């Protein structure tokens, strides 16, 4: 079995790839070399992951390890292999995209610096997924967190990038602190740092689960732990945003899946907690997305929604495991995992799309765009595909994943389940609501960016589709969305293998094909595409439709319509925002219009993040005021500070003393 060696080699090559961009090669040569090596390394790693799927036993290895604690033990079970797929696919496509998006010609030395941290980010995520030792896991986790920080804050000459970078750094370390506590508890309970299944955790199981949920929840971006996510995603270069949203958030999901897989006894409350957290993140995340004006912030909030959907699936899987219902487990975990893949595909596609738009127009403000569809037909078509997929609509991959979740939630209705379990079925109604808001959110984005007349003609006039390096990754992601949408059964063996790996050894997992006739979804999707093609052909053959004259949009006979009369994205979002104003707390500044000749006035509406802008910022501001009282002790003399330390040490010594002779 070479698969684990292949994957390890892939990780090393990917980690090293970025340093090649620093070589003094003229022009873009260094960056191209780095991208080629990263793609090659990812190919190696992916080959190893696919090999591990087929392996009868999970391949494992132990390397020499310098640190006094833990060990360098790695292994690829099907669950790891499942998460390795996006880890190796998305960064590889992103590095190709970066050749057109973040070039040395335009960005100067930043391009080389970014390549280094980009490679490290991709490699560390691979290591996170295969680590089987808590210390190794934490080392890889921290490298990932820091590499992502350096990569996301690459434009550190802009103040808002530095600000969002700091918020990310604080949030990720609060999460890591929880993980430290969790692994310390793990060590205390099991007696070792090895991540192997636990026979019985006793009372520690509750604490382990809660710490994992919070610690990994920070990384995954569950509400209300999402505070770092919108800013960091919006301000990172687009291919880094794609890797962060498409893959790095999933490391949080991986952590929760892995830790719950290791715990012996799963209790129903764990499942229902995750289900509720997921539902709240889903509805609130997409409702926030609908209120944003920054293109990439919309996508970032929509990531929170998708993480919420995944969380709902995990919750159902945990419920199934706690109550001995393998059907819920396989549909819940299967749907969640398929959504992990799907989200990494369509969200990366949309972030690449957003990058092309920014590259062409120089802005992320959707209120300044509009009418791009004619200038950038490829980008527009890719966006439509991504938007249909992310809204979970047939016939694309988003539907295939959510459909499994729906079937799982409906299955909790089967009589004979534990008392009160039917409440879980109500989550299907919540999922339907998430889907409907997602349609509103992405139609709004599509309309504001690509349709209508340009609101800022100067920006849009020069816009054009990106070059081949940026198009190619988008084509590949779009193709992947289509393939999973039309042939959802292809993913079933991987989902079943990963579910088996998650369950205790010896558990039977029902076949997805028996629970969910996925072939029908594929066939009907193809039939739908065929009918649309036929109708389009009919229009083409229509004798008079083809010669349709082009006139202005009908406007009640008004003679000089301007783009300022268009319905703006803010207006479109208002009706949804108003429905959810009880969670969104939108802020509006509305002038009072009085008298027959009212003076000129302004209207503005925005949706700030309640957790960050209304809770945390005021909290930190007031804590700064209180803690500034300590400043009286500040003298500016190092000796004095060391004296303070000495005094405190003596006080502690006294406080720790018991008076009992040694």
């Amino acid at each position, binding site marked *: 079995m070479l698969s684990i060696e292949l994957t390890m080699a892939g990780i090393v090559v990917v980690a090293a790839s970025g340093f090649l961009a620093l070589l003094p090669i003229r022009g873009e040569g260094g960056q191209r070399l780095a991208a080629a090596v990263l793609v090659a390394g990812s190919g190696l790693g992916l080959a190893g992951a696919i090999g591990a799927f087929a392996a009868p036993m999970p391949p494992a290895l132990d390397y020499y390890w310098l640190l006094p604690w833990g060990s360098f033990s790695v292994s690829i079970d099907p669950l790891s292999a499942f998460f390795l797929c996006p880890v190796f696919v998305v960064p590889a496509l992103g590095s190709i995209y970066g050749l057109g998006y973040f070039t040395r010609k335009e960005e100067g030395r930043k391009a080389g610096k970014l390549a280094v941290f980009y490679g490290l980010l991709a490699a560390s995520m691979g290591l996170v997924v295969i680590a089987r030792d808590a210390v190794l896991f934490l080392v890889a986790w921290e490298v990932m967190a820091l590499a992502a920080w350096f990569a996301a804050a690459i434009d550190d000459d802009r103040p808002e990038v530095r600000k969002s970078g700091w918020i990310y750094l604080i949030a990720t370390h609060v999460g890591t602190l929880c993980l430290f506590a969790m692994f310390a508890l793990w060590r205390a309970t099991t007696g070792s740092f090895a991540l192997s299944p636990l026979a019985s955790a006793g009372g520690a199981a509750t604490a382990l689960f809660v710490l994992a949920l919070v610690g990994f929840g920070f990384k995954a971006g569950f509400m209300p732990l999402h505070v770092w996510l919108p800013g960091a995603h919006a301000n990172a270069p687009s291919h880094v945003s794609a890797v962060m949203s498409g893959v790095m958030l999933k490391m949080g999901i991986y952590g929760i899946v892995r830790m719950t897989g290791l715990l012996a006894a799963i209790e129903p409350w764990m499942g229902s907690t995750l289900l509720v957290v997921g539902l709240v993140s889903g509805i609130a995340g997409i409702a926030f997305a609908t209120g944003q004006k920054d293109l990439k912030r919309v996508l970032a909030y929509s990531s929170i929604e998708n993480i919420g959907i995944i969380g709902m699936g995990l919750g159902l899987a945990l419920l199934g495991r706690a109550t001995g219902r393998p059907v819920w487990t396989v549909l819940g975990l299967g749907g969640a995992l398929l959504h992990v893949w799907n989200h990494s595909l369509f969200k990366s596609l949309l972030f690449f799309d957003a990058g092309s738009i920014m590259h062409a127009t120089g802005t992320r403000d959707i209120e300044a765009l509009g009418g791009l569809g004619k200038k950038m037909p490829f980008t527009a078509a890719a966006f439509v595909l991504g938007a249909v997929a992310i809204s979970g609509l047939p016939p694309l991959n988003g539907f295939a994943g959510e459909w499994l979740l729906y079937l799982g939630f409906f299955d909790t209705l089967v009589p004979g389940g534990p008392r009160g379990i039917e409440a879980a*079925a109500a989550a299907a109604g919540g999922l339907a609501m998430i889907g409907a808001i997602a349609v509103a959110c992405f139609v709004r984005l599509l309309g504001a960016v690509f349709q209508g007349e340009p609101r800022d003609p100067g920006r849009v006039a020069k816009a054009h589709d990106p070059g081949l390096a940026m198009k190619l990754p988008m084509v590949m992601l779009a193709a992947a969305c289509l393939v999973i949408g039309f042939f959802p059964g292809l993913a079933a063996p991987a989902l079943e293998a990963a579910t088996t790996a998650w369950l205790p050894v010896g558990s039977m997992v029902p076949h997805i094909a028996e629970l969910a006739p996925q072939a029908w979804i594929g066939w009907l999707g193809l039939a739908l595409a065929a009918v649309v093609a036929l109708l389009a052909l009919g229009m083409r053959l229509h004798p008079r439709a083809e010669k349709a004259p082009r006139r202005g949009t009908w406007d009640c006979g008004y003679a000089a319509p301007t783009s300022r009369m268009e*319905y703006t994205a803010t207006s479109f979002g208002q009706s949804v925002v108003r429905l959810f104003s009880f969670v969104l707390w939108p802020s509006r500044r509305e002038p009072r219009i009085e008298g027959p000749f009212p003076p000129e006035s302004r209207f503005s509406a925005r949706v700030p993040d309640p957790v960050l802008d209304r809770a945390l910022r005021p909290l930190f501001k007031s804590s700064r005021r209180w803690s500034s009282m300590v400043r009286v002790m500040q003298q500016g003399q190092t000796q004095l500070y060391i004296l303070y330390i000495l005094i405190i040490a003596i006080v502690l010594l006294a406080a720790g003393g018991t008076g009992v002779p040694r």
Partner: protein
Amino acid sequence: MTDIAVHLLVLILLPPFLLGVINKTKAFFAGRKGPPLLQTYRDIAKLLRKGMVISGTTTWIFRAGPLVTLAAVAMAGLLVPFGASPAIIAFQGDLVLFAYLFGLARFFTTSAALDTGSSFEGMGSAREATFAVLTEPALFFAFLALARMSGSLSLVNMLRVPAMGLAAGTTAPLVLIAIGLFIILLAETCRIPVDDPNTHLELTMIHEAMVLDHSGPLLGAITYSASLKLFIIGSVLVDIVAPWKTGNPLMDWPIFAGELVVLAAVIGVVESVMARLRMNRVPYLLVSAILLCGSAFILLVR
């Protein structure tokens, strides 16, 4: 085999007739003679022959919108049982596809509207998208209740429950679902009190405002899709309210068609005796649909 053929034929031919019935009923209440029952067929035939005027602002999405909508709605019609025919296609979980096909239709209708850059159409599509946020969960709660009663996740079996007679535990939920579905039907097909299909221009319109710029064959496709949608959701409602079957196809098809005509007449009466709600009141109506269907669900699982 004959059932499938009749199913397709009914699905293709009958829907525009329902619009005729609604208009005739409304004309009767208004003391007018009204357009002939078959007027919608003539309108569609005329539109299909005509040329089009297309706004220069639009892209391919504007032209794709009505076609994708038509295809998606028609496909949803294959999943519902009509008269003597069980659905043409039935599988475990087809109800989710049924609901999401309407979602796909909505995505393309609303984005085709935004493609024109007109404020009217923007407003219409924002409202359409927003109201769906409330109708979708209501529809799924109705499905949850039906799934609980039937123990099946296929529309065919779920809609067979009412025909099995009213048991003590299922009567109340079925009544609640029927009322909830009727509200969903009115909202989804853009009827009074949610929307007024007769006015295009008031700032209060939804569906008619979205299609202002479509003309010729595309407008024909839109009119036809609208009638198809009414027909399909209506037949789900009819299966719940009046599941009368004799077992003889020669009787069942006419009964089914008659029931739908009655439903159309009822919609016509509602449109005649009610005023359209103020736009900011519509969400309350839709939330009450969620409450009705959700209560049915709770009654069943308590």
